[in-house]
């Protein structure tokens, strides 16, 4: 009966703090014999205001035109109010070491509302002959490691990078054209900083900018549609020019000095594409930062489509 009691007490959430009590055996991937349902430890509450870890997510992988692959990683900060900085090093590293360095060091608090993870905040580019090799992202909090393996042999985790044919257009009612309805990662150019145009989740070279502590830095993004894949789609695109699509922009601090939050105004916005978006970023400490703008056409939960645009900012005192 004690197992039943434990199940019962979970109902009112009193024993809910056992989250993430993953055993070392579990973390190292060992197989444990299957217990009956009522003997398993069921957990209910994982998101709190503070004191919880950030857990990594392997979102999936896709192949690039040059044959290499991108492994997409995201993360879930389980704290509603607590943002965390974890510098690269023993508490935040990628294995094998040659892939280390692409990961973020800042993990913005979840905030209120429907909790969602940060989807594919960065990619690890791996060679075409990577085979079954695992790339692990490790995060450590309070002496416990949270890690996920990324690998391209996990077929169900294959994702789209640039175009998904999610159609929601209701135009002309009975017809739904595949491309017009399709979502496509936009082209994003950082106007006030020097850098190339970005498209898709990975492989984007950060734009460069300079700022001073306390003085808002204005960053403008020029967002445009990707070129149409064929003539019919080009026709559709021309027709769509009168009806720009609504896309969303989300800004976060990706990396930078510890305990140095960046204030974005606005941190989230809707933008008509093609169009322009402008944000003001204000810094409280000098140092080198990377900011991430995710420009979304589609749905994070559906894994397509958006562009990760990074801006490296050197902040002078």
């Amino acid at each position, binding site marked *: 009966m004690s197992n039943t009691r434990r199940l019962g007490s979970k109902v009112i959430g009193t024993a809910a703090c056992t989250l993430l009590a993953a055993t070392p055996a579990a973390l190292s991937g060992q197989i444990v014999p*299957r217990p009956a349902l009522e003997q398993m430890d069921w957990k*209910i509450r994982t998101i709190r205001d503070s004191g919880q870890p950030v857990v990594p997510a392997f979102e999936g992988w896709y192949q690039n035109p040059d044959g290499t692959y991108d492994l997409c990683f995201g993360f879930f900060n389980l704290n509603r109010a607590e943002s965390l900085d974890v510098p690269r090093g023993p508490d935040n590293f990628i294995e094998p070491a040659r892939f280390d360095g692409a990961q973020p060091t800042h993990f913005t608090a979840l905030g209120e509302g429907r909790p969602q993870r940060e989807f594919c905040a960065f990619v690890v580019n791996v060679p075409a002959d990577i085979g079954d090799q695992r790339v692990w992202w490790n995060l450590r909090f309070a002496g416990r490691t949270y890690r996920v393996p990324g690998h391209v042999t996990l077929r169900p985790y294959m994702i789209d990078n640039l175009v998904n044919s999610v159609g929601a257009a209701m135009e002309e009612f009975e017809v739904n054209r595949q491309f017009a309805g399709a979502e496509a990662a936009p082209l994003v150019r950082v106007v006030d900083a020097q850098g190339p145009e970005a498209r898709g989740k990975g492989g984007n070279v950060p734009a460069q900018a300079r700022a001073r502590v306390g003085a808002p830095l204005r960053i403008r993004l020029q967002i445009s549609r990707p070129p149409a894949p064929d003539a019919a789609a080009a026709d559709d695109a021309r027709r769509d020019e009168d009806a720009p699509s609504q896309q969303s922009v989300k800004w976060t601090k990706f990396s930078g000095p510890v305990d140095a939050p960046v204030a974005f105004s606005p941190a989230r916005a809707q933008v008509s594409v093609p169009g322009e978006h402008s944000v003001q970023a204000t810094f409280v400490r000098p140092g080198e930062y990377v900011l991430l703008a995710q420009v979304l056409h589609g749905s994070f939960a559906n894994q397509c489509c958006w562009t990760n645009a990074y801006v490296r900012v050197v902040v002078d005192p």
Partner: protein
Amino acid sequence: MSSVRIVVRASLVTASIALVALPHAATGQEASERGEVTFSEQVATLIQENCQVCHREGGMGPMPLTTYDQARRYATRIRAQVASRAMPPYHYDREVGIQELEYDMRLSDAEIATIVAWVDAGAPQGDPALMPPPKAFPDPAEWRMAEMFGPPDIVVPTTPYDVPASGNDKWWEPTIKISGLESDRYIRAIEVKPSVAGRRVVHHANTNLMRPGDDGELYNASGGRFTEYAGNKLGEIVPEGAGRLIPADGWVEWSVHYHPDGTAIEDDVTELGFWLYPEGYVPEFESKLHSWPLQGDLLIPPNGTAMTQGFLSFDHPIRIDSYQPHGHLRLRGASMEIFHPKTGEREVVSMVSNWSTWWAHSHIYKENVAPLVPTGSVVILTHWYDNTENNPYNPAPNQWVYPGSRTNDEMSHDWVGVTHLTEEQYEELVSLRQARPVASAPDSPGR
């Protein structure tokens, strides 16, 4: 929160019932001792009636089981699948909850014992002259409900979609005018029919009912989902006397979720079929398909587990007509209970402890046992998720699993068919039941 505390005590009784061990495999020892089970005499009929609808040429099963030779060849696997109640694929616990279900595909203990005894006896053929005549089946491309109701009155297809062989899950979301309706009508039954090839890859196909507003723009008039389909579901039948409206000026907004599985399908079309009550039919009750959310932060560690729960209560009585849990690859168990704060009683209505995302059934309660929930009673929904190696459907036990729409991510809601009642209607239904008691249902306010 004091009522919730009572739940805990009540759960000591009900949860322990709900979670008893999985069904024991029937041994069939008795029948085999008599040594009289043969394919021709007993087993062929069972296979015809319970298996061939899928296991025949062109059916969805991986191999046909239409001849003795085929059945003998797979005898060992048939024994394993049948004894473990994996086949027929209708997973619904037998020891607890309402057992009187419409279109229940489960075999009885005696039927399982017969098949097991037959295999254990070496799968003898018996006298071929005693074989039942072959069973005729409709074309697999046919509507499954046509057997009961004839051809559908209205069909709303998606526009064609090319499903790629591999890659990200896809969502195909065309909006289609409902044509062929002259006036608003009430729905008797609904079936969502993926193409024969599409059945492998259509993970779910949901629809919203849209209507033109005053400005001509379409708005969602279903207030939630209009219809729902997942994993080989048969369909939904609106109970007698209840009404679910289909308006003559309606549109269907589709959301077909494809999970590519290795073979491309060109021009795939999923269809929505409606069978209607006759013109002029006026329903006694209002009926709706609800998507009820479960709470709890769905986050499953590598090689870990998670549980979510949902609590719902209403300011009016309801009758629960059907129950269909929804989750993805890590969901393994689900239950629906009713807690009565006035008596402290908590009863298990339905339990599925071997759930699989590939087989989504809407469990339809027989009308005279469909739970009647008085005002203020609490419906408790529970899901159990298993991200360990022991979950046979788990593609990657080393991954953290989060909420999301992909098959690799998780979801936590149940589709529940509900008839909303007034207090008078509720009293009437309760007294009808008292006049016609159900033998197997214990005496409780929920029945």
